[in-house]
C-alpha cells in the first residue's frame, strides 16, 4: 500500500487552487479523486496528522502482543478518549483525543461523538456496510406524510451508486428487494452455519435475511490491482487498519489515485477555523487555518470550497464562518443550518446461543468481517403498516465465533464447571441488533456553544441538542420483540432481550444539519450539495442528508460526492462558478 507521506508537497498560500477540500475521509477523499481526474488542482486540508500504514496499522496483530492484552493501559479511555466508543488498544490513534476536542450538550440529553482527525478519517475503521437508499427512503415523506422528501430520487442516484460501488469494491448478493436496491457486487462472504439457521427462522416469519454488503475486496478488479489493493485474506483486523487495501478507505483508494495525477496537494495538521468570504461578493474566497502542531495561522485561497469534514464538523465550520453577509453562519439564510440532526439508534435486540452448535470444535470465524442483515420489514406498504410508528429498522447480526470468549463474562460459576460451560457455548453465539431510523425534527439541532466553550486551538465548539421521540421508542420496542421472536424460531436458548436504546451518536451515523432541498427558505443546500446562498461552496458529507433511512450512509455519501463533483465541473464549464 502506498505511503502517501512520501508524496506530500507543500501547500501554497500564494496561489488560488481550483478547489479546496476540507477533510480527507470518505467524502473528501472521493472529491479529491474525482476532481483531480477532471483536471482540477486541489488542496486537501486534513485537521489531523499524516499516517504511515506500515507503522500505524495493526493488521495481524494479536492481543497477546500487547502488554495489556488488547485492553490498553488501565484508565486510558476514561482519562483521554471517553467518547471514542470504538477506539481500542491498537486503533486509538485513529481517534481524536477528547481532552482537546470539547463539545457540550443539553442537560439530561447526552450525545456520543466519535471523531477521527487523521488522514483517511473514519474510513480507517468504519464498519464498511454499504447499502443503497431506495425511493422508500428518498421519498419517505410522500409515503407517510412526515417531514419533506429529498430533492432527488433513486433514478438520479442509481448511476452514482454504481460508480461508487465499482470504485470502492463491495461484496454482496443481488437479492431482488425493491426497497433495498441491488448493485454490482464482488462475491459475497458466505454465511456461517448459525447464520443459515437465522435465515431459516427469519423467513418463517415472512421476513428476509440477506448477506451483508461490505466494502471489502473478495475479488480484485483491474483498477483495484492497479491501485495496489489486494484481496481480503480474512484476518479480521479491519478496525485496526488494513495494510493490503482490502477494505475501502481513503488511504488505500481515493487519495492515492488523486495523488497519482500530480494535481493533489494534501496538507495534514490543518484545522480550518472558518471559510473566508469576499466582502464585496459574499462568495467564499478560501479558508483560514491554524496548524494543529505549530499553531501558525494561515490562509489558503480556492475557487471552490468543498466542505467534507464529517457531518457535525462541517456544520460547525459553517456556523463559525460568520461575516457581515452571513451573520448566522455561512449559507444560513434559511435558519436551517444546524437543525434536523439524526443518528440511527441501536441497542435493542436479542442474543443467545444456538444449541445445535454447542460443544463443537472452534473454527476461525472471526476473520469474516460481514454478518447478516435483516432489511426493513415494517411500513413498506399497506400490508406491513405498523399502527404505532413511522418508517422502519433493520437488524445487523450474525453467529460467529470471536477470538475472545466474551460469553465468559455472562456465565455464572467458577472452576472446571465454569470453564466447561464457557467452552460449550463459546462456539454457539447468535445475536441481532437494531439499526433504526430516527425521524428528522427541527428541534434536534446543534449550535455554536452559547457559553463560549472553545477547543484547544480556540475554535468555538458545538452544543448538541438531541433526544428520541415516541416514534423511535415504539420502534425500539417492536425491534426488541421481533429480534427475540427470530431467535426463538431459530431454536436459540438463554435468549436475552435488550430494550435499552443507544444514546444518540453511539451508532456513529450522525446525519443532517445542512440538509439539501429545493426551497432555499427551508434548506441549506440544493440537490447537488451546493449552498443555496454561496454558490462556490459545496457540502458533500452526511450533513447534506434530509433523512436517515435505516441503512448505513457512507455509500450514499460517496455517491452524492461523485454527483456533486460532476455538477460543479459542468457549472464551471458553463461559466456559472
Amino acid at each position: 500500500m502506498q505511503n502517501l507521506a512520501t508524496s506530500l508537497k507543500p501547500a501554497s498560500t500564494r496561489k488560488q487552487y481550483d478547489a479546496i477540500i476540507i477533510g480527507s475521509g470518505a467524502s473528501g477523499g472521493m472529491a479529491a479523486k474525482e476532481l483531480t481526474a477532471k483536471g482540477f488542482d486541489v488542496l486537501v486540508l486534513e485537521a489531523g496528522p499524516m499516517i504511515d500504514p506500515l507503522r500505524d496499522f495493526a493488521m495481524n496483530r494479536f492481543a497477546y502482543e500487547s502488554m495489556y492484552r488488547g485492553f490498553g493501559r488501565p484508565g486510558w479511555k476514561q482519562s483521554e478518549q471517553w467518547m471514542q466508543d470504538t477506539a481500542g488498544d491498537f486503533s486509538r490513534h485513529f481517534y481524536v483525543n477528547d481532552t482537546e476536542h470539547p463539545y457540550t450538550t443539553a442537560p439530561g440529553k447526552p450525545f456520543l461523538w466519535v471523531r477521527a482527525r487523521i488522514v483517511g478519517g473514519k474510513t480507517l475503521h468504519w464498519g464498511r456496510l454499504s447499502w443503497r437508499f431506495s425511493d422508500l427512503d428518498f421519498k419517505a415523506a410522500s409515503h407517510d406524510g412526515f417531514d419533506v422528501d429529498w430533492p432527488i430520487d433513486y433514478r438520479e442516484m442509481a448511476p452514482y451508486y454504481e460508480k461508487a460501488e465499482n470504485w470502492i469494491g463491495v461484496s454482496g448478493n443481488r437479492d431482488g428487494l425493491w426497497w433495498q436496491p441491488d448493485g454490482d457486487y464482488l462475491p459475497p462472504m458466505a454465511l456461517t452455519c448459525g447464520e443459515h439457521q437465522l435465515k431459516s427462522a427469519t423467513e418463517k416469519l415472512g421476513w428476509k435475511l440477506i448477506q451483508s454488503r461490505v466494502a471489502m475486496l473478495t475479488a480484485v478488479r483491474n483498477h483495484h490491482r492497479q491501485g495496489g489493493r489486494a484481496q481480503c485474506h480474512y484476518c479480521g483486523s479491519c478496525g485496526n487498519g488494513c495494510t493490503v487495501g482490502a477494505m475501502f478507505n481513503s488511504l488505500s483508494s481515493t487519495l492515492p489515485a488523486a495523488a497519482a495525477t500530480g494535481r493533489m496537494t494534501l496538507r495534514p495538521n490543518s484545522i480550518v477555523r472558518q471559510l473566508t468570504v469576499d466582502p464585496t461578493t459574499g462568495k467564499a474566497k478560501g479558508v483560514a487555518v491554524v496548524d494543529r502542531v505549530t499553531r501558525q495561522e494561515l490562509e489558503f485561497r480556492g475557487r471552490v470550497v468543498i466542505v467534507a469534514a464529517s457531518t457535525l464538523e462541517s456544520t460547525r465550520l459553517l456556523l463559525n464562518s460568520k461575516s457581515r453577509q452571513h451573520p448566522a453562519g455561512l449559507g444560513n439564510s434559511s435558519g436551517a443550518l444546524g437543525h434536523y440532526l439524526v443518528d440511527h439508534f441501536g441497542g435493542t435486540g436479542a442474543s443467545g446461543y444456538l444449541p445445535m452448535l454447542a460443544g463443537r470444535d472452534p473454527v476461525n470465524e472471526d476473520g469474516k468481517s460481514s454478518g447478516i442483515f435483516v432489511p426493513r420489514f415494517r411500513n413498506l406498504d399497506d400490508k406491513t403498516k405498523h399502527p404505532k410508528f413511522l418508517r422502519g429498522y433493520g437488524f445487523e447480526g450474525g453467529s460467529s465465533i470471536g477470538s475472545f470468549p466474551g460469553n465468559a463474562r455472562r456465565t455464572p460459576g467458577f472452576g472446571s464447571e465454569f470453564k466447561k460451560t464457557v467452552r460449550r457455548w463459546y462456539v454457539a453465539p447468535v445475536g441481532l441488533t437494531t439499526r433504526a431510523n430516527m425521524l428528522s425534527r427541527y428541534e434536534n439541532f446543534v449550535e455554536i456553544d452559547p457559553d463560549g466553550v472553545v477547543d484547544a486551538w480556540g475554535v468555538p465548539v458545538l452544543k448538541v441538542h438531541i433526544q428520541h421521540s415516541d416514534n423511535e421508542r415504539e420502534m425500539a420496542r417492536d425491534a426488541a420483540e421481533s429480534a427475540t421472536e427470530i431467535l426463538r424460531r431459530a431454536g436459540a436458548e438463554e435468549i436475552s432481550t435488550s430494550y435499552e436504546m443507544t444514546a444518540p451518536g453511539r451508532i456513529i451515523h450522525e446525519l443532517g444539519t445542512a440538509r439539501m432541498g429545493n426551497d432555499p427558505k427551508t434548506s441549506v443546500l440544493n440537490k447537488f450539495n451546493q449552498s443555496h446562498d454561496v454558490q462556490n461552496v459545496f457540502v458533500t458529507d452526511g450533513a447534506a442528508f434530509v433523512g436517515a433511512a435505516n441503512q448505513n450512509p457512507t455509500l450514499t455519501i460517496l455517491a452524492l460526492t461523485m454527483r456533486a463533483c460532476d455538477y460543479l465541473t459542468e457549472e464551471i464549464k458553463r461559466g456559472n462558478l
Partner: protein
Amino acid sequence: MIGMQKRTANRPRLYTLHALPAGKGFTGSVTGTGGRTVEVAFVPTQATLEKGGDRPRLQLSGTVTIQTSGRGPRPRTIEGVTATLLATQGSVSKAPDAPSSLPEKLRPTEAAPPPKGLPRTEATAEASTIAVMYLRLSPLPATGLPELPYDLSQVQLNARLWANSSLERDLLWLYSAWFLAQEGPAPNPEKAAGYLAEINRRLA
C-alpha cells in the same frame, strides 16, 4: 511547539487545560518553558452560585498550585482563584450510586416506569451524569509564572468527572444532580440548593 517559543510581549494564549479528578479538585498538565511538563492543580474549597449574567452559574473558589517536573521553580500556590461553570458535556456512562450519606429529601426517588412502558435511552434524564465541566478560570498572574509562558487571562478548565475514589464518585453524582436540578428541563431550585450544600460539605 508552544512550550518552545521564545517569551515575547505577546504570549500565545492557553485556551484550555484538561484536568482529571484528584480528590476534591482537578489536576492537569501543560508544556511549559524549556519543554518541561508543568502540573496545574485546581482545588476548590467552596461552591457558590454566581448571580448576574444570563443565569446563575456554579462558581468554585479555591487555589491553583503549579509545579514543574524535574528541576525548576518551587511549587507555588495562587489563592483566590475562581472557576465559573460555562457548560457541560453529558456522559454516556452508567451513573454511580447516590452518596450513601445524602439526607432523605435529596435521595433520588425510584425512577417512574417509562411512559407507555416504552424503552428508555441510555444515560438520559434522571440517569444522566456529567462527563466534563467546562469552567472559566479567573485570570492567572502570568507575569509571576515564568514556567508558563502563556496568556493565562481566560483559561478554560476542562474538568473531567470520573470516579476513582468514593469522594470523586460522590462529587460526580452531586455535580450531575445539581446541574439537572438547576438547569434541566424540570428545574427544582430547592433540590439544587440542597445538592450545592452537599458539595460544599465535601469541599470544606
